[in-house]
């Protein structure tokens, strides 16, 4: 199933894939009988925590707080990797590096990309899936 989904996304050049669904399939192996849907609860946590982190990144850039940018981007990067949201993870990695460097040059432009990628990722996770 995951392969089919990936194939559909990959076949549409206008909208490159933002999620590697194989990562979620891997999470499903942690499902225990009789327990709440583990992968879904991870997705729910992601949907809940992503908008505040994006907002924290925006605020850090606006207020030129390199340390805060580094930290929020780092957290969103780790979260995104864990769920296969690789596009957001990649953009966060770049923002984290900028934050570590101290000068926030280029951060605003990257942030716009991140905002769009995060919105698309959230939309995809909200779609009904297996």
């Amino acid at each position, binding site marked *: 199933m995951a392969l089919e989904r990936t194939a559909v996304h990959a076949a549409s050049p206008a909208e490159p894939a933002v999620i590697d669904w*194989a*990562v979620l399939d*891997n*999470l499903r*192996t*942690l499902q*225990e009988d009789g327990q709440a849907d*583990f992968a879904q*609860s*991870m997705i729910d*946590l*992601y949907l809940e*925590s992503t908008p505040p982190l994006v907002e924290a990144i925006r605020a850090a850039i606006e207020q030129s707080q390199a340390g805060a940018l580094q*930290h929020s981007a*780092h*957290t969103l*990067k*780790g*979260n995104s*990797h*864990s*769920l296969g949201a690789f596009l957001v993870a990649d953009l966060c990695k770049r923002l984290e590096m900028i934050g570590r460097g101290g000068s926030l040059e280029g951060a605003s432009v990257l942030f716009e990309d991140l905002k769009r990628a995060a919105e698309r990722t959230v939309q995809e996770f909200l779609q009904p899936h297996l």
Partner: protein
Amino acid sequence: MAIKILAVDDSPIISKLVSGTLTQAGYEVITAASGTEGLKRAEADHPDLIILDVMMPDLDGYSVCQQLRKNRATARLPIMMLTGQDSLEEKVKGFDAGADDYMIKPFQPAELQARVAVLLRRAAPQAQASVAEPIHGKTVAVFSLRGGVGVSMVAGNLAVGLAQLWGLPTVLVDLSLTAGHAALMLNLSPRTTWADLAQMPVAEIEMEVLNQVLLTHVSGTRVLAAPRRVEQGELLTAEKIAGVLKILSRNFQYVVIDLPHDFRDTTLVALDQADEIMVLLAPELAAVMNGSTTLEVFDALGYSKDKARLTLNYISERRDLARAGIEEALKRPINVIIPYAPEPVALAINQGKPPVLDKPTSEIGALFEDLAFFASQEEHRNKRPEPPSPAWTRVATRMQQRKKK
């Protein structure tokens, strides 16, 4: 009482992933959302192991680790750092702070489970004091340069047959890294596979780690399954495969390898390590030509003549070539003949039931049982096991009957 693990991470997502992974492995997991809370819980809740995130807003993981090491109550606790930093400098910093192990996010659940198991074992060496003497198991590789001649079928039945005969530790290794389905043929879900070893340095792979990755079949046979995705298989090096096979042969009496139809370096290391290679042939021209090439390569590799045993598998009703003709073409005797048996074979593949286990008294089941017996170690073959297994009794009875004829 369950082993208790404290996971310290400010991200609820990573925290949940770590606790989900470790709860599934049977541990009790408690969590702390900051470095300060982590220090408190480490002292109050007496965990057996701590997993620490590096980057946290209040106290970073290095500082938490250093403080834990200064406190007598927690000084000797196994600590694993879990972080997105993958530079050598960060790694060294973690070890300097007193961490025992270091894992980079994103991680594979099976790898975290394996590493935690290793850390806990190292922390309790006295519990493992009576480890059995290392053994020198027999490695049998099943090979054909041509696909579709039943390599996986024979390897699976051979492994299960050996386990049924002797009741000794037996492992089936699927080295068809890009297309293997030995696990599915035994009706096992490939939950853990070779892919879980892909990221791990060879030096860190030990039996404890492999135990976490090996699947267990109802016959007791352990199975090292092929990766589910092609690209995962491509990450495995010949060096790693050689290392894993060495460990397996020291821990299992029988190692059966299901090989792909090529002479890549990952296949060659397995052929090198095999004590015996079962070369499968089909009674058709292309298969025999491939068989001939195979034997030439074996000669060039310096393998002794008796390392390879020829097995002719009648995979269809057609008998294009007669046995005598094949033997003449290869200048070698054929050691084993597998008769044409479409129904039991199709059923076995579709339902994941090897005939040697499911229908041991059928013609094909009996043949695989005998095949397993003749592939057994000499010292096993020469002695009646006590108590004799039902499989051994059947093999012995058939041998008696053949002698009478």
